[in-house]
């Protein structure tokens, strides 16, 4: 029905352009704009949904072959849980209410009354968009826990995260909570460097602290050893899918096409930062180790994307590569430093945590007077060159408050949840199960069966054919053709 309406609106728009005389009979420009905006938000939501495939491939590529099936089950189950949790509870807590949590919109229903307004199509699109953001944030959490966590931990934490932890943070910044007014200035986070990415990384940190490293990660001397992931092509595919999905994530956070203005600027900023992040990470790891590490280049692209997420709607084009490049440098040093003590198989703490913090703070440095929110001040760069330095410094402070408050809130709630899981059903599989791999022990099957089971045991081993296969026709015709020399 909505589809048909949008089509009608588009045709009406074309008619308006072609025949100005009948414009009076066509829907108003405002209603056409609303239709287009809603269409874009739903398309962007689908791009954000596609990021789940990105996380799946990234994590599987960085895992060993015995743990790949577990990654598939995890992504699908988590997406299912967070979807229902957000619909039933999360959206209500994230939305309008008091300073701490929303009070309306539970069990989201069409035509329901939220803050005095009736829920319509555009609200539904935004609710769906928010739901998939929560799913992205949750997917980030598990990057630190690969190859050793019990499946039950996913299920329990996903419910708490989708219904409570992520919505509380989203309410704080986007839903009119405390962080939307810190001493008169809002924390600016356009698409969620802090709200989505730092939140996910901090949840992952809490899990990791209680879970410990994979067996064999640290030698008897305490030095970290590499546990290489099984497929760089799969990890690379994950990075690129995430990169594509980020167009929905950032440019979709304009909540509309807005005449093409902001929407296109956000998209270009996103691309510039990701490119700079990949290149800077490659240069940094080359300078450190004299090798152009494949995984690290991927982490650099992700770090660039995470960093530009918050400022994508607030900075001018020239700052996007700067923000992305610094994130690319930061992620390499972050991964090398964190790896000394904490086993984070995909580098989520650095790529989503450190880059998320940097991206959020970068608005306080480079936020453009043309683009920042109404009550906010532009970045320090503009304070020095042509404005009020004290006010811009204040904005940087407010950005820092946003980061610290989010970190504390998410860490406390996540640590408590994981501690409760550890005390009851346990967080970690047994040593024997970890050695055998989560695929066979938790899911009863191998992700790559032929890698672990001899073909003979299937009862249909491949054998040499009794009669040789006929020669391909092309080969025969080639042979019968006279050679040029003849």
């Amino acid at each position, binding site marked *: 029905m909505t589809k048909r309406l949008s089509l009608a609106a588009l045709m009406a728009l074309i008619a308006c352009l072609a025949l100005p005389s009948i414009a009076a009979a066509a829907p108003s420009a405002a209603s056409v704009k609303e239709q287009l905006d809603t269409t874009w938000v739903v398309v962007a939501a689908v791009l954000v949904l596609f990021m789940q495939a990105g996380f799946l491939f990234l994590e599987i590529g960085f895992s060993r072959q015995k743990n790949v099936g577990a990654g598939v089950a995890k992504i699908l189950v988590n997406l299912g849980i967070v979807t229902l949790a957000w619909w039933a509870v999360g959206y209500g807590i994230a939305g309008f209410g008091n300073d701490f949590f929303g009070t309306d919109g539970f069990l989201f229903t069409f035509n329901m009354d939220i803050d005095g307004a009736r829920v319509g199509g555009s609200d539904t699109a935004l609710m769906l968009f928010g739901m998939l953001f929560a799913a992205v944030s949750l997917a980030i959490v598990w990057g630190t826990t690969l190859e050793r966590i019990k499946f039950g931990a996913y299920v329990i934490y996903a419910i708490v995260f989708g219904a409570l932890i992520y919505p509380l943070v989203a309410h704080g910044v986007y839903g009119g909570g405390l962080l939307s007014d810190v001493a008169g200035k809002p924390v600016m986070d356009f698409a969620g460097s802090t709200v989505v990415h730092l939140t996910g990384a901090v949840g992952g940190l809490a899990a990791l602290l209680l879970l410990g490293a994979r067996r064999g990660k640290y030698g008897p001397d305490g030095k970290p050893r590499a546990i290489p992931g099984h497929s760089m092509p799969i990890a690379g595919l994950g990075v690129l899918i995430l990169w594509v999905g980020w167009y929905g994530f950032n440019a979709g956070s304009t909540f509309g096409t807005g005449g093409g203005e902001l929407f296109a600027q956000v998209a270009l900023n996103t691309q510039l930062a990701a490119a700079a992040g990949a290149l800077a990470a490659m240069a940094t790891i080359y300078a450190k180790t004299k090798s152009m590490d494949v995984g690290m280049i991927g982490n650099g692209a992700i770090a660039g994307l995470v960093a530009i997420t918050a400022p994508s709607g607030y900075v001018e084009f020239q700052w996007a590569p700067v923000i992305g490049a610094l994130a690319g440098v930061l992620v390499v040093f972050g991964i090398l430093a964190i790896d000394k003590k904490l086993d984070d198989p995909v580098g989520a703490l650095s790529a989503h945590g450190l880059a998320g913090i940097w991206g959020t703070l970068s608005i306080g440095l480079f936020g453009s007077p043309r683009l920042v929110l109404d009550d906010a001040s532009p970045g320090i760069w503009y304070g020095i060159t042509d404005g009020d330095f004290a006010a811009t410094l204040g904005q940087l402070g407010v950005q820092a408050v946003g980061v610290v408050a989010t970190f504390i809130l998410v860490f406390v709630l996540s640590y408590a949840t994981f501690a409760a899981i550890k005390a009851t059903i346990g967080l970690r599989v047994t040593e024997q199960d970890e*050695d055998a791999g989560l695929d*066979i022990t938790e899911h*009863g*099957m*191998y992700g790559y*069966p032929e890698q*672990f*089971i*001899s073909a*003979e*045991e*299937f009862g249909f081993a491949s054998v040499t054919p009794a009669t040789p296969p006929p020669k391909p026709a092309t080969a025969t015709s080639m042979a019968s053709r006279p050679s040029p020399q003849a």
Partner: protein
Amino acid sequence: MKKIEAFIRHEAFEPIRQELLERGIPSLSISEVKGSGRQKGVVEHYRGASLTVNMRPKLKIECVVDDSERELVVETVLKHARTGSIGDGKIFVLPVEEAIRIRTGEEGGDVLQSHEGSEVPSG
């Protein structure tokens, strides 16, 4: 000269290799093998249907030493490979007729292992 063949669990290998190296036995070979014994097979489920996998993956260590060092190697393998559960594996000791170092053509017990430590890799 004796050849010691040990079929062990994968995770037992690294401590065995480490200790043999420290005790002057750096030369050995390993291969991934699949076999059956008293340890039960693994049942794999694939979308509701099941498949019993009877061959379990093991690691085979092959190490040729002088008769005098036979006990040392066997002892080391037993120490690290024994968990006490079914599936720990087996050790076989076989006589070896001759050993020849390909690089120099030398023959005899001296080519088996590096005793002086000069050829022992660091770490």
